[in-house]
């Protein structure tokens, strides 16, 4: 029989995968994987905020990630530094700030490994509610801004010229990134969230020739990774977050092999 905590982990993980599928595609299309990393690093600062003021962790992480994201957008306007340098600057300074602050909170016993790599044991009913409710809000918002967001991803000038307001949807999308990190931090941990975003989407890119198809395959692939990863972690007693990512990696590798087969078939026929 499956234990309750495992069922909860499955429900939570699948909820995360449904949201990371579409967002992960945009992360790849807009070349934002390092940006996702930066937001995830800043999540540590969010956690310390939550511990210090006894806030909900997801809420605090969202708050800090959103502030960092908006700060980054403004920083890009006022400096001539390249984007990746700014991202590195923010990623490491927020991580360092978070670690320094945690050291001051000696009165709290804190599982930092769980934070970095995720911990299925800690997923409770409230977390599930946050994931599914937050996930629904993220997906509905994404659906609403899909057209202008996709248009401005393909070409900023075209979208702006034809009245799609790319700057506004860019900010909304950035907030969605902050939100997905906030709701999934307990599942996969802050070091591996970007993996959950990128890897199913990367696999999907190998198998699709249009955007809708890529989103669909990425979502299914993400859910499959969660199922495989969680069952593997139960079977081999491995950490949940990394197991999910390893499963996603396996799917990605499979998608490469599959691609080759199709090519060979094409030659024979």
């Amino acid at each position: 029989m499956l234990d309750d905590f495992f069922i909860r982990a499955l429900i939570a993980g699948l909820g995360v995968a449904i949201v990371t599928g579409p967002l992960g595609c945009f992360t790849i299309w807009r070349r934002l994987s390092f940006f996702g990393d930066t937001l995830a690093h800043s999540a540590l600062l969010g956690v310390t905020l939550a511990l210090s003021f006894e806030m909900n962790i997801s809420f605090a992480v969202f708050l800090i990630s959103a502030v960092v994201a908006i700060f980054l957008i403004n920083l890009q306007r006022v400096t001539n530094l390249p984007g990746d340098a700014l991202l590195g600057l923010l990623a490491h300074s927020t991580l360092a700030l978070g670690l320094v602050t945690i050291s001051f909170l000696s009165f709290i016993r804190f599982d930092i490994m769980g934070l970095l790599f995720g911990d299925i044991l800690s997923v409770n009913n409230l977390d599930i509610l946050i994931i599914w409710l937050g996930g629904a809000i993220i997906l509905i918002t994404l659906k609403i801004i899909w057209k202008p967001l996709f248009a401005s991803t393909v070409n900023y000038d075209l979208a702006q010229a034809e009245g799609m307001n790319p700057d506004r949807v860019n900010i909304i999308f950035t907030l969605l990134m902050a939100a997905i990190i906030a709701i999934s931090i307990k599942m996969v941990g802050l070091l591996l969230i970007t993996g959950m975003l990128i890897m199913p989407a990367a696999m999907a890119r190998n198998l699709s020739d249009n955007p809708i198809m890529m989103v669909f395959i990425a979502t299914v692939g993400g859910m499959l990774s969660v199922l495989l990863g969680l069952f593997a972690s139960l079977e081999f007693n491995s950490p949940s977050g990394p197991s999910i990512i390893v499963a996603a990696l396996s799917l990605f590798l499979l998608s490469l092999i599959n691609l080759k087969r199709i090519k060979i078939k094409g030659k024979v026929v």
Partner: protein
Amino acid sequence: MNNVVAKLNNAGLQINNKWLVKGVSFEVKKGEIVTLIGPNGSGKSTTAKIALGIYKNAEGHVDKYTNKIGYVPQKISIDWTLPVRVVDFMNLTEKLKEKDLDDALNLTGVKNLKHRNIKSLSGGEFQRVLIARAIAKKPEFLVLDEPVQGVDFKGEIALYELIRLISENLKCGILLISHDLHVVMSATDYVVCLNGHICCSGTPKTVANNHNYKELFGDRASNTLSIYEHKHDHTHSADGTIKTKKI
């Protein structure tokens, strides 16, 4: 009735205290083709983007009187790793009716590419798709920034003919940027000659006789008009309007 679709009044743009273009005024009316000409770096594309409202920090007054806008940019940097087919690209900013989509692709001669991946198109093919996308939504204001670059010679003539037809049939206002002075002088209602500012403007005939224009483009450029004008005189000597002549 107001026929104007876009109007620039003393518009300009400066970046890092340097004016890219300054003091530009003109208007585009329905059914009319306004062409921007000028040497490289004279601010043609910048002016077009100002007219489209792409720059938020542009100076002067820019008014657009329609939201139905089609745009063919000069340089388009699409991330070729995006999985986008021609049909997805056509629907980029507006969900088109299947028939409008097919018609537009037919007009630019690339219907057969409908389900191809954008990545696999040649430069000329993609240019045709760009034009098809801009006209498929039946815009009231169409901005074409060197729309036939990379298109083969035969296709070039056909596409310019198509642009003229569109302005007549859709009654849309067209802002065209072109290096092809033959085309400019033969198919245009109003010419704006730019060199960081408006150095002259008017009907093709007045511009060609302007000494600023001759200085900018050389005597050969004026000849392009006289060659054309010769043809034109034969076709339309009676009313003298430029719209109705054949290329």
